[in-house]
C-alpha cells in the first residue's frame, strides 16, 4: 500500500503546474503566459495588472528588458519567439492608468537603502508595499542611477519619471545629494554605522563602492563578503546587491546567470526588441538591468524575513531564473513569423499586439488529458486528481465524489506512456480501490455485476480443467478466457482442435483445456480477497495438470498471468498462430481487392509488441492492408472494458468508445472479444481476427452485435457442456431446477433487461420462487403477475404471465435496498 511519501512523489511527477519556460527563465518570474492571454482578449488593462504583480517598474523594464524569456520561448521552435518585451510595452501603453497601489498596513520597522539605482528602487518598492517605512539615501541629485544614461530612443525620460512616481505614492522618503559615510566622505554624511542605529535593516545598492565602506572587513580579494542566497553581508542586518555582484565569481547559480546575461559577443546574436527598434544595442551594463531588479527583489525578501525573524534561507531555490520541468508538445504548430510593428520606436499598436499575442502557444503540458476522455472528463489534470484522491475530497463536478473518480479509470496505462515523467494514474486508482475495499467504503453497485460474472465463470457451470483424453498431464493448456468463450464459443472449440494438431509434441504430450476467468475483474475492482481465491483455485488445477504452458487467447489474461503468476509459462495465441501457421480450412483472404482495415490493439498489449506484431503478420498473411490508428501499439486506447469502466461509469465508457471509433472511417479489426463487441455496439463495423480465420461471413460478422449478458452466460455453459460431451464423453450435472424454466421475451424487453443488467437466470429464479411459494401479486387490470425475489444481494421484480409450459416476461426491475416485510 502506498505511503504518503510515495504518493507525494507521484504527485510531483505531474508537471502541469510548473511554470512555462518564459516565466522560469525570467529572473523575476513574470507571468508572461497570463499577460499574453489577457492581450489575446484585447484586455491590456488586465495584462498590465498581471505584469505589475511581478514587475515594480513596468514602463522602464518593458523598454529595456534583455528578454531572457525570448531565448527559451517555445514559439522559437515554430517560427520566431514571441516579442515579449514589446508586448509588455503594449500593456504599459494601452493598459490605461495604473490603479491604486495596494500596500499592507504600516509596520513600525524602518529600512534604509543606500543608492537609488534600479536595485535600490526595487527594494524600496517591495518593502514599502509590505508596510515598512523606507528611506533612500542617494548621493546624486536624482534617483534612477544609470537609467538616465540610456538613449531616449530606447527609454524616454517620461517613462522613467512615470514609473518612479510610484515610490512617492508609497511614501518612500528620499534623501538626495546625500552620501553615506565611506572613504573620502566630507564628514557631513552619516556613517554607515549610524544608519544601523536608526534603521532596523540596511540595503546597499551602491555598486562596487560597497568595498569602500570602513565598516566591513574585507576578504582575501579585497571584497566585502556577501552571502549569495540571502545577500546579507558579514554585518548583521546589512544587505547588498546590484550589478557589481555579478562580476564576482560566486560559482554556481550567479555565475551561470552572468554567462546567460552578459555575453560579450555580437549583439545580433540576441533575438529581441532591438530588431524592432533598430537601435544599436546599449552598452553591456544594461544587460544587468533586469538582474538589478532581481537583486533588489531577493534582498527585499531577505530583509522582510530578517525583520520578521524567520528563516532567511528556507525555500529559496526558485528565486532567480531556472529551467522549467514543464513539457510542451510542439507537434502540429505551424511556423509563423513575428508580427512586425509599423512604428518600432513607438511599439505595437493595439491590433498588432493582439495579433502577435495570438501566436503564443500558452504553454502547458496536458499530454495525458489530450489522449484520455476520463482525464478530460473531470476538467483537471493528474496532480489535482491525485491530491484529491489522497485527501478524499470530492471532485468539483456536481455531486460526484472521489469514489467515482477512482472507479472510472480504465487502468490502461496510456497516460503513463505519454507523460513526459511516466506518471500512470491507473496505478494510484487501482491502489485506491484496494484501500476503499479495505475500509468498507467501496460502493457495492460499482463492480458487483462484473464480480458475479466472474463467479459464474469460475463456478461449475463453466469452469473446467482437463488433460487431453487419455493423457495424465498436459504439456500445454489452452486458456481461451471467459469473454471469448461468451462471445464466440464456436471459435474456442475450433482453436482447441487446431492447437491439438499444431503445437509441437502435442500428439505425444497433450494439450489440455482450462475454462475459467483469470481473475482480472477482481484485480480491477480492488478485491484482493476474491483474486487470491481465484488464484489459488487455478494453481491447484495447474499443478494437477502437470504445470502446462498456457496458450492465452485474451491479452488481459496474458497480463494477469504475466504479473501475478511468475511460475506459469505463458504464450499468446496470436504468436502461436503466427509461428505455426493458419488453421486449415476456409480463411477469409482479402481477395484481389486487398481490403483495408484499421487495426486496434487491445490496451493490454500495450508493451507486448511481439503480440502486436503477430496479429499484424497474421492479417498480412490473410492479404489485408492495415491502417494504423493515430494512437496505436504502445499508445493504444482502451475500449472501456479495462478497469471495469464500462460498468462503473457507463456514460464515460460510451464517450470513450465514440472517441476511438471516430478516429478512422475504415472498418476496424482487433484481437480482443470485448473491444470488438463494444465498438460494434456503438455502431462501428469491427472484425475480430478470428472472424477472418474461422468465420462464415466476415462482411456481416463485422456488424453483428455481441451477445447480451444472459446469452454470454448461456454460451459459456453450453460450451462446457458440448466439449465435455464431445471430447471427454461426459455429461454435466443436472442443471438447477430454475434453469429449466422457459421464457418468452420480446426483443425490446430483452434490450431493457440488458440495459438494467438483469439476467435470464435472475428472472428464472424469481418465477421459480413465486410459483413454488405462491407469493405473487395479480394486476387485476392487466391480468399479469408481479413477483420479487432476492437470490443474493439484489432484489428482482418480474412482471409475467404463464404461457402454457413457459412464461412470457413483460418487464423487470431491480434494487439493492432490502425490504422488511412480514407482519401486517
Amino acid at each position, binding site marked *: 500500500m502506498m505511503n504518503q511519501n510515495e504518493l507525494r512523489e507521484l504527485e510531483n511527477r505531474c508537471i502541469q503546474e510548473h511554470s512555462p519556460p518564459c516565466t522560469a527563465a525570467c529572473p523575476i518570474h513574470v507571468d508572461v503566459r497570463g499577460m499574453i492571454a489577457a492581450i489575446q482578449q484585447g484586455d491590456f488593462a488586465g495584462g498590465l495588472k498581471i505584469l505589475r504583480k511581478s514587475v515594480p517598474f513596468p514602463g522602464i523594464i518593458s523598454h529595456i528588458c534583455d528578454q531572457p524569456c525570448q531565448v527559451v520561448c517555445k514559439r522559437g521552435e515554430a517560427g520566431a519567439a514571441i516579442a515579449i518585451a514589446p508586448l509588455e510595452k503594449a500593456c504599459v501603453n494601452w493598459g490605461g492608468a495604473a490603479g491604486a497601489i495596494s500596500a499592507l498596513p504600516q509596520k513600525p520597522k524602518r529600512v534604509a537603502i543606500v543608492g537609488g539605482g534600479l536595485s535600490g528602487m526595487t527594494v524600496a518598492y517591495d518593502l514599502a508595499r509590505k508596510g515598512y517605512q523606507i528611506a533612500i539615501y542617494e548621493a546624486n541629485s536624482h534617483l534612477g542611477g544609470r537609467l538616465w544614461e540610456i538613449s531616449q530612443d530606447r527609454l524616454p525620460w517620461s517613462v522613467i519619471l512615470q514609473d518612479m512616481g510610484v515610490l512617492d505614492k508609497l511614501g518612500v522618503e528620499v534623501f538626495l545629494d546625500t552620501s553615506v559615510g565611506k572613504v573620502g566622505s566630507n564628514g557631513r554624511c552619516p556613517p554607515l554605522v549610524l544608519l544601523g542605529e536608526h534603521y532596523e535593516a540596511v540595503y546597499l545598492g551602491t555598486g562596487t563602492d560597497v568595498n569602500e565602506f570602513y565598516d566591513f572587513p574585507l576578504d582575501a580579494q579585497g571584497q566585502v563578503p556577501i552571502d549569495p542566497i540571502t545577500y546579507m553581508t558579514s554585518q548583521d542586518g546589512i544587505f547588498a546587491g546590484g550589478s557589481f555582484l555579478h562580476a564576482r565569481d560566486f560559482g554556481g547559480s550567479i555565475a551561470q546567470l552572468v554567462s546567460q546575461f552578459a555575453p560579450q559577443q555580437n549583439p545580433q546574436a540576441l533575438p529581441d526588441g532591438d530588431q524592432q527598434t533598430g537601435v544599436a544595442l546599449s552598452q553591456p551594463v544594461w544587460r544587468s538591468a533586469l538582474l538589478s531588479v532581481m537583486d533588489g527583489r531577493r534582498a527585499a525578501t531577505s530583509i522582510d524575513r530578517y525583520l520578521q525573524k524567520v528563516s532567511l534561507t528556507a525555500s529559496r531555490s526558485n528565486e532567480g531564473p531556472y529551467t522549467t520541468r514543464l513539457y510542451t508538445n510542439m507537434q502540429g504548430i505551424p511556423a509563423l513569423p513575428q508580427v512586425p510593428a509599423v512604428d518600432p520606436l513607438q511599439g505595437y499598436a493595439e491590433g498588432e499586439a493582439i495579433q502577435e499575442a495570438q501566436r503564443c502557444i500558452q504553454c502547458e503540458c496536458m499530454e495525458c488529458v489530450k489522449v484520455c476522455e476520463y482525464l478530460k472528463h473531470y476538467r483537471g489534470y493528474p496532480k489535482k486528481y491525485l491530491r484529491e484522491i489522497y485527501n478524499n475530497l470530492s471532485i468539483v463536478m456536481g*455531486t460526484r*465524489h472521489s*469514489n467515482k473518480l477512482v472507479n472510472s479509470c480504465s487502468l490502461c496505462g496510456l497516460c503513463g506512456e505519454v507523460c513526459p515523467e511516466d506518471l500512470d494514474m491507473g496505478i494510484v486508482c487501482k491502489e485506491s480501490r484496494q484501500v476503499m475495499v479495505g475500509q468498507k*467504503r467501496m*460502493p*457495492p*453497485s*460499482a463492480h458487483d455485476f462484473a464480480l458475479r460474472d466472474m463467479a459464474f465463470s469460475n463456478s461449475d457451470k463453466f469452469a473446467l480443467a482437463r488433460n487431453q483424453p487419455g493423457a495424465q498431464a498436459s504439456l500445454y493448456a489452452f486458456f481461451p478466457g471467459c469473454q471469448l468463450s461468451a462471445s464466440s464459443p464456436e471459435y474456442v472449440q475450433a482453436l482447441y482442435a487446431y492447437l491439438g494438431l499444431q503445437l509441437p509434441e502435442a500428439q505425444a504430450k497433450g494439450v489440455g483445456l482450462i475454462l475459467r476467468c483469470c481473475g482480472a475483474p477482481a484485480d480491477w475492482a480492488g478485491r484482493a480477497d476474491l483474486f487470491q481465491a481465484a488464484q489459488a483455485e487455478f494453481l491447484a488445477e495447474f499443478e494437477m495438470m502437470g504445470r502446462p504452458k498456457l496458450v492465452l487467447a485474451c491479452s488481459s489474461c496474458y497480463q494477469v498471468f504475466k504479473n501475478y503468476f511468475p511460475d506459469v509459462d505463458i504464450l499468446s495465441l496470436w504468436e502461436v498462430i503466427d509461428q505455426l501457421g493458419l488453421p486449415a480450412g476456409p480463411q477469409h483472404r482479402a481477395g484481389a481487392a486487398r481490403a483495408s482495415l484499421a487495426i486496434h490493439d487491445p490496451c493490454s498489449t500495450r508493451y507486448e509488441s511481439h503480440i502486436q506484431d503477430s496479429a499484424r503478420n497474421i492479417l498480412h498473411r490473410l492479404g489485408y492492408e492495415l491502417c494504423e490508428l493515430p494512437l496505436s501499439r504502445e499508445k493504444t486506447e482502451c475500449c472501456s472494458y479495462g478497469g471495469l469502466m464500462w460498468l462503473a461509469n457507463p456514460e464515460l465508457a460510451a464517450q470513450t468508445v465514440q472517441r476511438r471509433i471516430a478516429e478512422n472511417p475504415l472498418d476496424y479489426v482487433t484481437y480482443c472479444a470485448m473491444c470488438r463487441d463494444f465498438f460494434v455496439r456503438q455502431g462501428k463495423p469491427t472484425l475480430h481476427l478470428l472472424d477472418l480465420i474461422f468465420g462464415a461471413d466476415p462482411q456481416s460478422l463485422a456488424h453483428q452485435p455481441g451477445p447480451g449478458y444472459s446469452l454470454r452466460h448461456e454460451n459459456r455453459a453450453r460450451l462446457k457442456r458440448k466439449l465435455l460431451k464431445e471430447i471427454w464423453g461426459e455429461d454435466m450435472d443436472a442443471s438447477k431446477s430454475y434453469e429449466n424454466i422457459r421464457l418468452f421475451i420480446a426483443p425490446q424487453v430483452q434490450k431493457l433487461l440488458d440495459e438494467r443488467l438483469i439476467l435470464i437466470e435472475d428472472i428464472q429464479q424469481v418465477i421459480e420462487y413465486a410459483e413454488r*411459494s*405462491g*407469493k*405473487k*401479486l*395479480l*394486476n*387485476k*387490470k392487466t391480468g399479469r*403477475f*408481479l413477483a*420479487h425475489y432476492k437470490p443474493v444481494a439484489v432484489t428482482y*421484480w418480474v412482471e409475467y404471465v404463464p404461457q402454457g409450459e413457459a412464461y412470457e416476461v413483460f*418487464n423487470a*426491475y*431491480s*434494487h*439493492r*435496498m*432490502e*425490504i*422488511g*416485510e*412480514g*407482519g*401486517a
Partner: protein
Amino acid sequence: MSEYVNPGDLNTWECVNCGVPLVIGKIQIAYLGSAYPVDLLKCPSCGLVFIPEELVLGKMAEVEKALEDK
C-alpha cells in the same frame, strides 16, 4: 394516504395467495445500515409488498447512491 402510492394502484393489486386486495401499510426499506419507514401497498394478511417501478428506479435508486457514496 402515502405519497409513494399511486392512487391508480389502489384497486389494482391483489395478493394471489390470500386472495385479497392490497392496502396501505408501513414497511421498512434498508441499505448499508440505514432503514427508512415508508407507507406502501401490502397484503393485510401475509404482508407481501408491492413496490412500483417508478419508486424503485427513482427515489430508491437515488437513496442507494447517496448511501453508497459517503
